[in-house]
């Protein structure tokens, strides 16, 4: 695994220079973004559905303890074991204990971002258990020793030739002359390898898209069907879910499903949505003999009483990443945390502290597309601004930026001074811009002027122009 720089700026520079990554990201606007807009066009009531989805999430979060308690009650009545974990340490211990008790040597895993949060794979591997990711994208990043770079498309940072190279490196059984004509060939290769693992696994670990309080069910949403093969084939199924995943009723899941896939992949619904309730029944010919549900807080309860509570509405569709100009430029790994893109820039400071992640809320143009496409209307730009304020207040912002902000604030808070300074600056820039009306080079803005000219201001400030207009109108 390549050592990653600890600093966001350096990771971004590396991402921008990475040609493979840039080639892979180039497909985003024409792919997931276009698909979403087509799906939205097919459902005229889509905007109204977003309001419904937001209200369901708000209601649930406002009554979170009650719904979780009912969920636990009903899941246990259905025969599941429910475990509670404050943090990664507790969750890892619970899951390892279940695996050991089951005598597990091979564990298959469905996609779970929460398991990334707690670095579950490393922990199980250290205990001598083989862990195999089964979502194709997750499997590829596991082979490469990487983290997923997108919450629904984990290997979106890789091109087809890179995946082929990885398979040749890691699948020792491949004859040297085996040809992979296209993505379909690569999928067939992965299918054959992973089918063996599915059938041999002792324990299957999945995440949960929703926990249904009404029925005690775990809901899994996939396109590949790997979630079901992970949850329904092995003797033991463990679902790992964070506290915010609970949803009151079956009707509520229906309303959320209507916006989930449309926002994420642009499908009307994914191929598979499964409501799993308890272990195998007495007469059932298949299904796990034991069902465990591990419910993890990991810092989320702190958000409940904070100004970042709206972030808990998130249903992990990935639309904010797909539509973010910054994510589109640098990909997911540059963010450094488990969650990338706008939602990651809100969650990572909450989980790791603003001192460690102060750069992330600034990695945004605040253009607002993320909020426009969020299926549960999370006000992401507002939350990012709040983190910027919190970072400044906590002294996490670098001194050069603080000094610049201080200087700007000093001037901006003194109207007379502001007018004088801006008049001078604008007049000076206009004069320097000369007849060309543009700058080929500007100090502090070399990155901008390297590829384009910076237009010179027209000589008078907005306030001057405004005052002139006002005089003209009142005359």
């Amino acid at each position, binding site marked *: 695994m390549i050592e990653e720089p600890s600093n966001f700026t350096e990771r971004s520079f590396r991402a921008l220079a990475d040609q493979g990554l840039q080639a892979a990201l180039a497909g985003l606007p024409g*792919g997931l973004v276009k698909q979403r807009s087509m799906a939205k066009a097919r*459902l*005229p009531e*889509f905007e*109204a*559905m977003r309001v*419904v989805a937001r209200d369901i999430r708000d209601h649930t979060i*406002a*009554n*979170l303890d*009650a719904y*979780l*308690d*009912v969920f636990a009650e009903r899941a246990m009545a259905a025969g599941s074991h*429910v475990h509670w974990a*404050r943090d990664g340490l*507790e969750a890892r211990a619970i899951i390892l204990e279940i695996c050991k008790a089951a005598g597990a040597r091979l564990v298959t895993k469905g996609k779970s971002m929460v398991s990334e949060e707690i670095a579950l794979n490393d922990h199980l591997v250290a205990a001598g258990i083989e862990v195999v990711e*089964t*979502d194709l*994208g997750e499997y*590829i990043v596991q082979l490469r020793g990487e983290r997923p770079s997108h919450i629904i498309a984990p*290997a979106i940072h890789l*091109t*087809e030739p890179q995946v082929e190279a990885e398979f040749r490196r890691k699948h020792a059984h491949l004859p040297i002359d085996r040809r992979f004509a296209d*993505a379909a060939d690569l*999928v067939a290769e992965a299918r054959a390898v992973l089918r063996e693992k599915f059938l041999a696994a002792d324990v299957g670990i999945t995440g949960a898209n929703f926990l249904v*309080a*009404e029925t005690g*069910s775990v809901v899994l949403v996939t*396109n*590949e*069907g*790997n979630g*079901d*093969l992970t949850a*329904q084939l092995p003797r033991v199924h463990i679902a790992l879910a964070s506290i915010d995943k609970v949803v*009151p*009723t079956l*009707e*509520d*899941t*229906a*309303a959320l499903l*209507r916006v989930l896939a449309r926002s994420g992949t642009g499908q*009307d*619904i994914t*191929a*598979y949505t*499964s*409501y799993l*309730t*308890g272990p195998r*029944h007495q007469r*059932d*010919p*298949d299904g796990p003999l034991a069902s465990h549900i591990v*419910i993890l807080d990991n810092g989320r*309860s702190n958000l*409940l*009483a904070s100004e970042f509570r709206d972030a808990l509405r998130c249903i992990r569709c990935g639309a904010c990443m797909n539509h973010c100009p910054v994510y589109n430029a640098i990909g997911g790994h540059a963010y450094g945390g488990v969650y990338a893109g706008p939602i990651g820039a809100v969650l990572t400071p909450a989980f790791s502290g603003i001192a460690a992640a102060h750069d992330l809320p600034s990695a945004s143009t605040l253009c607002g597309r993320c909020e426009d496409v969020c299926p549960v209307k999370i006000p992401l730009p507002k939350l990012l601004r709040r983190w910027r304020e919190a970072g400044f207040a906590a002294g996490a912002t670098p001194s050069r930026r603080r000094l610049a902000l201080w200087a700007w604030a000093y001037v901006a808070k003194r109207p007379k001074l502001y007018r004088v300074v801006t008049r001078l600056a604008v007049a000076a820039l206009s004069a320097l811009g000369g007849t060309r009306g543009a700058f080929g080079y500007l100090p502090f803005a070399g990155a901008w002027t390297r590829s384009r000219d910076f237009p010179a201001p027209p000589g008078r400030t907005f306030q001057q122009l405004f005052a002139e207009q006002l005089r003209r109108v009142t005359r």
Partner: protein
Amino acid sequence: MTREEMMALIGNRLGFERRGEAARRRLAEARLARPPIHLLPAIACGGGAECVAGFVERVRAHGSDVLELSNIAELPSRIATYLATGGFDLRLAAGCDRRLLDLKWAAAPLELQHGCAVPCRVALSHAFAGVAETGTLVLLSGPDNPGLLAFLPEIHLVAIARESVVASYEEALARVRLASSGTRQLPRALNLVSGASRTGDIGGRIVMGAHGPRRLAVFLYG
């Protein structure tokens, strides 16, 4: 941590609101006792022939085959033709659903293995319901239709009665709730299936048959 500790932790954080713990519990129980039906899009409303036509159109839209039968007795011969045309095995696995087992398979000619999810290339399930709004099949696991039949084979065949096609997820889920009200518990697996298994994880190109069936064929009868 224990359940009580988690509840106390969350309760404390929510404590700044006027509603107390007991009030939250009452609110939650009221919603669970009478689940509100949310605003439905036009596509999820209606019924009858229009609903079935929408279902067929949307099943086809996600790349699956739809074969229309006038009667379930036609199922074996139609399946035999379908499999032969595609060059597939004339052997298939199914559960113990009497609606399927009572049909004349040997005459088709097809070999039907039943009882459990035996390793097979072709499997047959009977759907509990269909949802028109997205062309979705509702499958309930159990001895009649083992849940894994929808995921292990390469080709998944699903029989569904026209009368069980409804407009919305809500209607289908309400029917499931009603059907399981006797045991007060859902079947172990309730699978909503909308097309065959697929992935876009390599270079963003959609490839069918990621882990589950490469093909899905729906036999609509009645």
